[in-house]
């Protein structure tokens, strides 16, 4: 079913909102402040309901099917977590209540701070950042504050070529100039290269663990030592934490501060682009710099600690995306410590199984052992005039969300697959079958792939047109 835009519907005077009657006198209003009122369409409740119901039917979510979007960790989002986030005790809570009036809300935050510290192996947690990128920014600011507390202002930062696009952007927001670190031909960093580039004007290094090829940086301890020796700090991008729970201790790796994407590893739904949450965990020596306020325990009660003179300040109007934190805590307590470790183990198993089954069909960028994701390319298919994009779009017709494509940049035509642990073997086998069939089609009938997808509401969209002649509103 097609569905017009909201303002192509409706009729003046309709209303879907249940408007209360005014039971107080009309107050005087300075006419010079009065606007004309926004030009919104007037709709009935059924108009609105059908509109969004239809829109939803054009979308593909985790509940629709497998979503092997590398580095995005599209695992199943438990329904029960939604119920807790919707508890009226929570949705009605004003963020400026006095601490003694909202001990339950504070305790949840405190407990989650502790839980995340335990899962990563770090010492302390702030829950304020609203997304992974804001977590990175927070971490980079902590770097700056740390150096400042030492009377330094360092200007550079080391960032591997496998880093997420947000890493350099976050660093540069804090005044650091990114210095690119090349990975070697096994897909990891050489300690020697770090040694060569690390100096006393370099604030530190940003490492993704495991990296965006799904590979663990085997020299990480050595690299951390080099960086620390020069007075630098090690940042951990925890977007790939789903490979690590209960298996990797980030503090032991030498990480000083790291962010977690709660909407990835900890199963909160992505909502078509958010809200996420980007908790940041740090070792004790960076604790003084974490955002203000933090929740602390004071005897038997909990309170917000504003008295943090070295804090980098506030990154959110209140305490971050609290509703997302609720879901995270619910997930952690539903899984328990052992469940979390098993989740990571099975996530790695699933990814390695796919890699083993598809390595004869698709070209593998690196032979190095990988964890929760694997990166193929279209190298075997280019000779038939078929690209990664064509194959991705064709997968849609088979009922799958495509993998992440053309990332990481160091693999030409990358196809980055992360199945997560919530996919069962039978479904993974079907996906492997579909991938093989697409590869066969690339040989037999390239045009089929060029014209994909065909079973969707719209065909391939003209992104150039969109950018060249922007139409950003109706």
């Amino acid at each position, binding site marked *: 079913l097609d569905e017009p835009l909201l303002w192509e519907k409706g009729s003046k005077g309709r209303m879907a909102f249940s408007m209360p009657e005014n039971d107080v006198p*009309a107050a005087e209003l300075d006419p010079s402040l009065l606007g004309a009122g926004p030009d919104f369409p007037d709709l009935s409740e059924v108009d609105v309901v059908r509109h969004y119901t239809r829109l939803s039917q054009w979308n*593909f979510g985790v509940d629709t099917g497998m979503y092997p979007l590398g580095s995005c960790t599209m695992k199943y989002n438990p329904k029960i977590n939604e119920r807790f986030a919707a508890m009226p005790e929570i949705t009605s809570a004003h*963020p400026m209540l006095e601490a003694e009036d909202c001990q339950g809300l504070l305790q949840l935050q405190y407990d989650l701070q502790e839980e995340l510290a335990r899962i990563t192996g770090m010492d302390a947690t702030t829950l304020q950042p609203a997304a992974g990128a804001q977590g990175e920014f927070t971490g980079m600011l902590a770097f700056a504050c740390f150096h400042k507390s030492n009377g330094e202002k360092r200007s550079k930062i080391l960032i591997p070529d496998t880093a997420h696009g947000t890493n350099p952007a976050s660093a540069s927001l804090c005044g650091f100039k990114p210095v690119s670190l090349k990975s070697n031909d096994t897909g990891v960093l050489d300690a020697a290269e770090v040694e060569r580039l690390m100096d006393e004007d370099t604030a530190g290094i940003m490492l993704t663990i495991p990296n965006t090829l799904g590979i663990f940086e085997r020299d990480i301890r050595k690299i951390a030592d080099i960086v620390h020796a020069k007075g630098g700090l090690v940042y951990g991008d925890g977007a790939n934490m789903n490979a690590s729970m209960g298996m990797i201790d980030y503090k032991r790796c030498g990480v000083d501060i790291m962010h977690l994407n709660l909407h990835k590893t900890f199963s909160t739904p992505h909502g078509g682009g*958010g809200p996420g949450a980007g908790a940041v965990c740090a070792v004790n020596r960076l604790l003084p710099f974490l955002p203000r306020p933090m929740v602390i325990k004071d005897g038997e009660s909990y309170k917000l600690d504003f008295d943090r003179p070295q804090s980098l300040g506030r990154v959110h109007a209140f305490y971050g995306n609290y509703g997302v934190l609720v879901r995270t805590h619910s997930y952690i*307590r539903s899984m328990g410590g052992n469940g979390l470790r*098993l989740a990571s183990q099975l996530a790695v198993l699933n990814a390695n199984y796919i890699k083993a089954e598809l390595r004869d069909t698709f070209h593998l960028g690196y032979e190095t052992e990988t964890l929760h994701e694997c990166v193929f390319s279209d190298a075997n298919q280019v000779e038939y005039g078929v690209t990664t994009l064509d194959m991705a779009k064709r997968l849609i017709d088979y009922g799958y969300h495509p993998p992440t494509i053309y*990332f990481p940049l160091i693999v030409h035509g990358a196809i980055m697959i992360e199945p997560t642990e919530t996919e069962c073997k039978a479904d993974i086998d079907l996906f492997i079958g579909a991938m093989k069939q697409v590869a066969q089609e690339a040989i037999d009938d390239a045009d089929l792939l060029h014209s994909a997808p065909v079973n969707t509401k719209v065909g391939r969209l003209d992104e150039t047109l969109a950018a060249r002649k922007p139409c950003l509103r109706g």
Partner: protein
Amino acid sequence: MRYLPHTEEEIQEMLEVVGKESLDDLFSSVPAECRYQGDIPIPAALTEWQLKDHFAALMSKNRVNQEHKVLIGAGSYDHYVPEILPSLMSRSEFLTAYTPYQPEVAQGTLQGIFEYQTLTARLLGTDAVNASMYDGASALAESALMSFRIARKKKTVALSAAIHPHYREVVATYLQATDFTIIELPVDAEGRTDLSSLAGIEGLASVAIQSPNFFGVVEDLQGCGEKIHDVDALFISCFSEALAYGLLKSPGECGADIICGEGQSFGLGRSYGGPGVGMMGCRDKLVRNMPGRIVGQTLDTKGKRGFVLTLATREQHIRREKATSNICSNQGICAMTAGMYMATLGGTGIRQLARLNYDKAAYLRSELIKLGAKPLFDAPVFNEFALRFPFDFERVREALKEESVVAGLSLEAYYPDLQGAYLFCATETLKKEDIDRIVSSIKKHALQEV
């Protein structure tokens, strides 16, 4: 384990294909010195039912809950949320989707966000709106950064002291590691921002005004715009209560160049401060300097209308460190919800509702004045207002908590010179009978105290 589908047999079969002996073996690439030691010290898994008990017990520890009338706004507002919003937004096709990188299977999200952008642009009277920022505070910080990109060499932003104190803190955080400077503009006796010092500021890139401001006072945005443009700075107009623009002149109409604020009022719970949604928009000519995702309209191979993420060249995955910002995940479904809320109200409804809020606050204010309270400011207000009582209000306020009322917010922590002043908020959720009951309670306790 209900979320983990693997049976023992399947694990064995898969390990065999992979060529590993055990699950642990899969991690052989992680050196021993990096390994996690022992079990994660988190209690064993709770069942769904234990978890329900756990949350119920936790939340029962709150002394203030949904039964209370909490007369505080200050950036987080109590508005009715139509039942259809959670009911539709919880549809898993919306909720469990990722950022729409693959537009062919994400037209629902994309059209929904395009509609959000459009309705928000109409609300704010501007040309282009992005697909959301984290919240009003970071939207303001990003607006300041945006103004520096546009104004090139100028390095100062002036912030009204009547901007939400937390928002100003966040701007300070965002700018602390840069060479940009913040100047604070004082509040005049009327409760509006005093712009008289503007002309004297060197390298002024932009001036940010919040309206209604932190004290609920409606700023003279038109006048501000003129004065700010007179000194050749960009006019950033900010808000924490989006509903005000159902009634008031839009910031765009008043000349704002960049408009930003918080959209929590539009169908989102207070949820102890988040998730809300940062709204941000600007004039067309500035759009390539705006951070954040944007959805645009285009055509498919058959000429059919469709929507995609666009203007990505501004973004970090293309420009990396040269990006307009590092924002990536935003508040997607909150923006969709805000869009849906605007659609639910419609043009007719938003005007009525905004008016209702205006009237409720005016009524509460006038009743409190009858008790002897003195308003801090006389300029028109929307939803919120600040005043002082002629008696020790803190004790009265504590007493009212026992009657399930949280009567306003003490301003002292935010403005040390406003000792004894309280900020009140009234929205459509406050019935006249509630107001009358609260006012008479205040009176009773005030008298008892004497």
